[in-house]
């Protein structure tokens, strides 16, 4: 039974696309057949993060409008057999998407994959509402700071009212994924801590992704972080989150502050 998962946040720049790529790759690495779908029509990024930007011929809009077949637009990942990408169009805008077009594509993808992961654009307008429209589950990405938490709260409200599942009176499963978490700063009160975020959002926690250079490094080489450096902290956190999505129970690890060596302690803090 295929699952349609939307990765959304409301606020931009919190790590939706990075998380879509990482979770998609992690699920594929765990043996699932996965397609990641870029809904950010006009500002596509997922193809870059996936390292497939040179292979895009047809896109989501072409398929929605019947110009191309779904099989022509799907791009298979070069590293993982069971990972596919359906790119967005860069030359169009979100108005080119129609409800019926999205419905048909999602229904088609359901028959071919175990997981359909929709990368939502930022905002609460058409693009974002269409990305979540046919979802069974949602991953709400947030950073540990107030504005992104409030926007996440807004998006949760929309997930509970604007999706087909919600309109049928069913419960859409929602998870919060906290990204760019820095334990040290949270402990010093410079960031919201995990409990604050969970208390405000009141939905289950899927994972905590630590702030790390590895994420940016992976993006720059066009590779999901779980593939680029599987031993890194964020990669491990994403792998755990993907297992939780599959229904496994895995203890939550709050990323600890990296230990500094003696010299690091001496020279770690630069004088202001």
């Amino acid at each position, binding site marked *: 039974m295929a699952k349609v998962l939307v990765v959304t946040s409301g606020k931009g720049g919190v790590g939706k696309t990075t998380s879509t790529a990482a979770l998609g790759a992690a699920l594929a690495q765990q043996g699932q057949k996965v397609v990641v779908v870029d809904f950010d029509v006009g500002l596509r990024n997922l193809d870059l993060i996936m390292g497939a930007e040179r292979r895009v011929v047809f896109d989501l809009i072409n398929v929605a409008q019947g110009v191309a077949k779904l099989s022509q637009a799907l791009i298979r990942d070069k590293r993982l057999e069971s990972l596919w990408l359906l790119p967005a169009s860069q030359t169009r805008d979100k108005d080119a998407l129609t409800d019926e077009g999205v419905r048909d594509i999602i229904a088609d993808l359901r028959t071919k994959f175990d997981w359909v992961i929709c990368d939502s654009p930022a905002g609460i307008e058409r693009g974002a509402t269409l990305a979540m429209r046919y979802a069974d589950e949602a991953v709400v990405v947030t950073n540990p700071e*107030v504005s992104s938490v*409030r926007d996440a*709260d*807004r998006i949760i*409200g929309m997930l*509970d009212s604007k999706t087909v599942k919600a309109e049928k009176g069913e419960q859409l499963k929602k998870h919060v994924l906290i990204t760019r978490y820095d334990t040290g700063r949270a402990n010093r009160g410079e960031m919201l801590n995990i409990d604050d975020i969970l208390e*405000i959002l*009141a939905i289950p926690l899927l994972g905590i992704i630590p702030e790390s250079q590895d994420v940016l490094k992976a993006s720059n080489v066009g590779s999901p972080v779980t593939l680029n450096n599987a031993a890194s902290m964020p990669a491990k956190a994403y792998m755990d989150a993907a297992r939780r999505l599959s229904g496994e129970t895995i203890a939550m690890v709050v990323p600890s502050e990296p230990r500094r060596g003696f010299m690091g302690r001496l020279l770690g803090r630069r004088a202001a």
Partner: protein
Amino acid sequence: MDSKVEPQRQVMRLRGRSYVAFVFSPFMPIMNWLEEIDATLAHSPGFFVGRPIVLDLSAVELSSRGIAHLISSLESRGIRVLGLEGVEASGLEADLPPVLSGGRGCLVEHVEPQKVEVQTPPPVSSLLLRNPVRSGQRIVFAEGDVTVLGSVGSGAEIVAGGSIHVYGALRGRAMAGINGNSAARIYCQKIEAELLAIDGYYQTAEDIGETLRRQPAQAWLDGELLRITPLN
């Protein structure tokens, strides 16, 4: 014995009584009019069976034979004619129904199945929300109280005609007693509200005392003063 036996005279008593009869007014050509009758019968067969029917012939000019023919064609449709109207009694054959006069129009009542009275529930005076109210959501309930089983997010808004009860943190805006109900109150388990208002008197987050923040509290109107006091 001379006796005269008076024959017992039976007094015949005549009483008048009025009945409601359907009046048919045929028009020319008769064939078309009969088709209309047939159409009515197709809709509701047996509609005229057993009902008194009077033929008003003022719109048509028919001979005595013509009238007899018309009556027999109605009879073949199960319609029995009780009397005639709008024709001279003289010159009509004796076996035709009698000519009536002095008819008064009246409303023919259709007996319709009695409508079952729908029991309207008493007007709702409170609204229960089982889920948290999220940022950007706006709940307006002018008819009475609003109860939220969960938190009210920052950027959410609750507007109530009566009181507002929040079983969770109140981080958004709450406006109670909007229809001039100064007795309305706002209760919450954790006060972090952006704005509280009762009957138009309001306080923003800045006015709420630091000691109260994050505590269970209630807001109520003391004259023209909005007071926020801790619960328990």
